[in-house]
């Protein structure tokens, strides 16, 4: 998991300008920089606790993401804490299953929906996360292995983020734009898709 997280931080940093561009269109243009700061905090967490893994690491990552503030900090913090809680509740020895991952992703989605009052279709991060949750559940039903499940989830998230371009923002800062928010993908959905793509690729092709 540590390698996947590290890959995600690199993907976020490489896309800083693109994320800022998407955010500038509807918001305040800080998303790329804020996510890069988050990536930096996450990497420091990995460096400070080189032996940490599993649920304790996820909890530490939640605090690292929360430390950047903005809107995205609480969103990632609350969703990762929900993931950690889910991991504790199903704690068992050995590697996680696809079913575990689908459960964790669903817990993250519920936590974000509860925090911000958003639902899929509102042009938020959920428009990437919700399809990813469904893809993980379908992968589990189909008996897919973890690599295929992660790849399917990442693809679904990317498709969802792309589709968010056609949506009208219903919550958050961009919602004040109404129809004018149509046209560009939601920055939060886009960055989550990037993270999941990097995660899946790192799992499939370990460095």
């Amino acid at each position: 998991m540590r390698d996947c997280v590290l890959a995600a931080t690199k993907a976020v940093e490489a896309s800083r300008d693109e994320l800022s561009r998407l955010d500038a269109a509807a918001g305040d243009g800080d998303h790329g920089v804020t996510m890069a700061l988050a990536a930096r905090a996450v990497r420091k967490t990995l460096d400070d606790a080189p032996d940490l893994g599993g649920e304790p690491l996820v909890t530490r990552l939640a605090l690292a993401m929360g430390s950047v503030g903005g809107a995205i900090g609480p969103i990632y913090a609350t969703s990762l804490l929900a993931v950690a809680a889910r991991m504790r509740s199903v704690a068992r020895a050995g590697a996680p299953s696809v079913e575990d991952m689908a459960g964790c992703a669903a817990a993250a989605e519920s936590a974000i929906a509860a925090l911000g009052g958003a639902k899929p279709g509102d042009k938020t991060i959920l428009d990437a996360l919700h399809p990813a949750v469904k893809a993980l559940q379908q992968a589990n039903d189909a008996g897919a292995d973890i690599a295929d499940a992660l790849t399917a989830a990442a693809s679904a998230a990317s498709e969802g983020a792309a589709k968010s371009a056609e949506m009208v923002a219903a919550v958050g800062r961009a919602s004040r734009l109404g129809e004018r928010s149509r046209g560009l993908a939601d920055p939060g959905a886009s960055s989550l898709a990037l993270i999941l793509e990097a995660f899946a690729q790192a799992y499939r092709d370990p460095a």
Partner: protein
Amino acid sequence: MATTTGYKKLINDPFEAVDEALEGFVGAHAELVALAEPRVVARRRPAQNKVGVVVGGGSGHEPAFVGYVGLGIADAAACGNIFASPPPNVVLGAIHAANHGRGVIMGYGNYAGDVMNFGLAAQLAAAEGIDVREIRVSDDVASAPASEKAKRRGIAGDIVVFKCVGAAAEQGMSLADVERIAIKSNEATRSMGVALSPCEVPGAGRPTFELPPDQIEIGMGVHGEPGIKRGPLQPADEVVAELVGAIVEDMGDDRRGDVALLVNGLGATAYLDQYIVYRAARRGLESSGMRVVRSYVGEYITSLEMAGVSVTVTTLDDELTSLLDAPSATVRFTV
């Protein structure tokens, strides 16, 4: 780290910009303020036996919010990354610095990130037994209709609300009374801005928005959020007439009597222009039957190097007027 910026900025590492600026701020104004902990600027000499006042938000709006820490306004400011709310632990640090046992009120602009982070901090403080209230300033008439005042963004109206709240707390009012003043001053305050050229978040590598050289955007937010109308640059009197017209129309029953007028420069607009804007705004308000009895002109809350101004109008009664006039000694607002 190299800065890929289209703008000339006197910074070093863009990721260190906020902390370096804060170190400079508390160094320059050490008689008034000190860094209580990273990202928390507090009064050099803490107050006693009063309601604590915390202000805050993202950085990049200097002199907000640190410029309002001191006697008569805020006890502490919580500072986030550029244009991003401070996280809950920083806000909680500011609450601790401001708490003198009579409760704490937090004032901040109404943005999703601030609402979440300050709200989480309030819950953490409540768990410690600190009574925390919040005022989400929502003065920007361009950001939502009057019927949805609670959805509006907070812009330069922040300053009027913080001054009234800070004065009420300094006078020894109870937490409930300070909260009443907070709500009242926010309800009485309306603003609208215009952007002439964009700003650039350090490290973003591009300006926050594009605006052709001959175009302006009416109603643009203090972070460069898109406004309500884009059009050709007009003489100051015509641009201000649009801003004041929208504010006056929104005022409804408040369209009477005495008002305070605040003209705020967004960072790269000359004071010459700001006073021309003030003149036009004052004339517009007076021709609508109001009397401008308190005036403030200058850079109170900026958007990095954005060019433009905002106009803020607060309907006054004797209580709000006396709170605006009450003594204060902060870097940006001294009475």
